[in-house]
């Protein structure tokens, strides 16, 4: 095969997917908190090729975050307790969003609040802001004292937050779920009923690590959120549970480092994937994953990515 015809074939692959009213050119997105506000990665990544950029979590007012040390490497993963340090939604719109508007890529604002009203206000500010294509609601951060996970661990609280934000915005609404619950499908069903257009999962798994010489926790916050390949099988299992429970699209997150990792999630039923910790290790990870997905589709003669999504064959094993 000559190179030109191969190129033509690559162009024939249809990777577009829909999340609510939003169409993404492909299912490869960045996970909040691992890609800054996009510009940090522009030297390494063609942002135009991404399905979407999910920016660092935004709160109503700037937050200084937790004291250091904030991170610690653990087997096949890392713990973090950043505590949602961010410049605040208004500064983001004024100083960071203009850069992202130059790209033909969906921008998803990840939002966070300590109270229902703070979430609502951030959504209100973002609604109608040029260059914001969707909102991802973080009800799953394990590293802050108020807000975050306290909303995400209870179906009623998760639904209440979702309803309030839904009433403020027509933007596609994605709710990001925590794995630190007894039954993640329950939470997913609750936010779906409250008007979420999609759910993304999982956020980090709460964890801890101790310096035995000093008899101190490695993180100043004592506990942190575990990310990276260590959590991937947990994430995949939860995506499997949730895709069977809800009708809205599921976005898979959790230790995706390579195209084959991403394909596991897509085949299991995730409509899209978010790449997180991999960006820290290999800044161009998203590009390699996207290319690898295309190669796989060529190899398996799959014209549309939607044919692949949810094509998992469990035989009789999955019908418990």
């Amino acid at each position, binding site marked *: 095969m000559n190179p030109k015809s191969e190129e033509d074939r690559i162009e024939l692959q249809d990777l577009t997917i829909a999340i609510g009213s939003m169409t993404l050119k492909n299912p490869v997105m960045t996970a909040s908190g691992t890609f*800054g506000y996009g510009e940090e*990665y522009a030297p390494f990544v063609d942002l135009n090729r991404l399905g979407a950029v999910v920016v660092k979590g935004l709160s109503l007012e700037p937050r200084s975050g937790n004291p*250091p040390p904030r991170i610690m490497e653990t087997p096949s*993963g890392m713990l973090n307790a950043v505590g949602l340090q961010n410049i605040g939604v208004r500064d983001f719109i004024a100083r960071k969003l203009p850069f992202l508007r130059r790209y033909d890529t969906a921008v998803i604002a990840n939002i966070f609040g300590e109270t229902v009203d703070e979430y609502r206000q951030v959504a209100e500010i973002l609604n109608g802001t040029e260059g914001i294509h969707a909102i991802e609601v973080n009800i799953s951060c394990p590293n802050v004292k108020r807000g975050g996970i306290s909303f995400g661990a209870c179906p009623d609280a998760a639904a209440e937050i979702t309803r309030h934000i839904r009433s403020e915005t027509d933007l596609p609404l994605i709710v990001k779920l925590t794995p630190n619950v007894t039954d993640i499908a329950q939470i997913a069903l609750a936010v779906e009923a409250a008007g979420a257009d999609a759910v993304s999962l999982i956020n980090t798994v709460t964890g801890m690590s101790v310096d035995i010489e000093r008899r101190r926790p490695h993180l100043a916050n004592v506990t942190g959120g575990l990310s990276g390949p260590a959590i991937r099988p947990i994430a995949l299992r939860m995506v499997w549970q949730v895709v069977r429970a809800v009708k809205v699209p599921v976005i898979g997150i959790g230790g995706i480092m390579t195209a084959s990792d991403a394909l596991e999630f897509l085949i299991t039923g995730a409509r899209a994937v978010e790449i997180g910790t991999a960006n820290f290790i290999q800044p161009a990870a998203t590009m390699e994953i996207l290319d690898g997905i295309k190669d796989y589709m060529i190899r398996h003669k799959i014209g549309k990515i939607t044919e692949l999504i949810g094509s998992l064959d469990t035989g009789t094993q999955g019908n418990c």
Partner: protein
Amino acid sequence: MNEIQSMMTGVIRENRKVASDQFMMTVILPPSFPIPAPGQFVMVREANRGEPLLARPLSVYGFQKQDDHAVLELLYRLAGRGTILFSKMKPGDEVALIGPLGKGFTIPEGLTRVLFIAGGVGVAPLIFLLQDRFLTAETEKGKKPIFYLGARNVNLLVGLERLNGLCDLKLCTDDGSQGYHGPVTELLKSEIEGYDPKETVIFACGPTPMILSLGRLLKDNPIPCQVSIEERMACGLGACLGCVVAIRGPGRKREYVRVCLEGPVFDLKEVLPTSSVDMQGSENES
């Protein structure tokens, strides 16, 4: 300041022990690797190895650009699993590098007296700074740089061969096995009155106790001091917000800034090192 960052694979030419807990790695890179400024660092990991996951931040010890390749020298202390694995790498092995990163040292105008204060492996960025910026005619007008170098004992004093003849070298050891018997900051304290604050600048890098002690010594002294700080890092690019250090921001307000982007070089009087991480051994697993 060099704003260009690059992601490249380098080949190890040499990786040898220079002290009981320190190694020097020489990496051959494509000639297009951007020239680092003194004080900048690179994120290093073994190519084709999935574990440990994260790259390690190492400051640049030396850099030479040739026609068809570049040579990068890195000095590192065995501080955890990541650096121990680095020390086992052989010539010909590949490393994945991102860099040069961060904001390096700033050279003020009109200097006649330059002091370097280094502890242990903290000598690396300061030797690169000395060799890169203070060998030229402009500084010959002034007095010879003075290099205070401290370590726990004589066997841990590294980089002496690069310093000979370039500066007045003042060695200190905690056990008195060479030079002054005591911390490097104690020797500086006894001599500080001899330096005119109007024409002196200090460049420093070393373990947390040294930086804290330097902070106390210079608290009421107008001599400016730039210090290179280390922290655990995941990305080195400003995204993970893992490597923050507290500083006194505008209006003396305490805030967290990223060592990888706003640093690693800070004004000593602004930085508030509160981290429990040993700055000299800021490994991801310490």
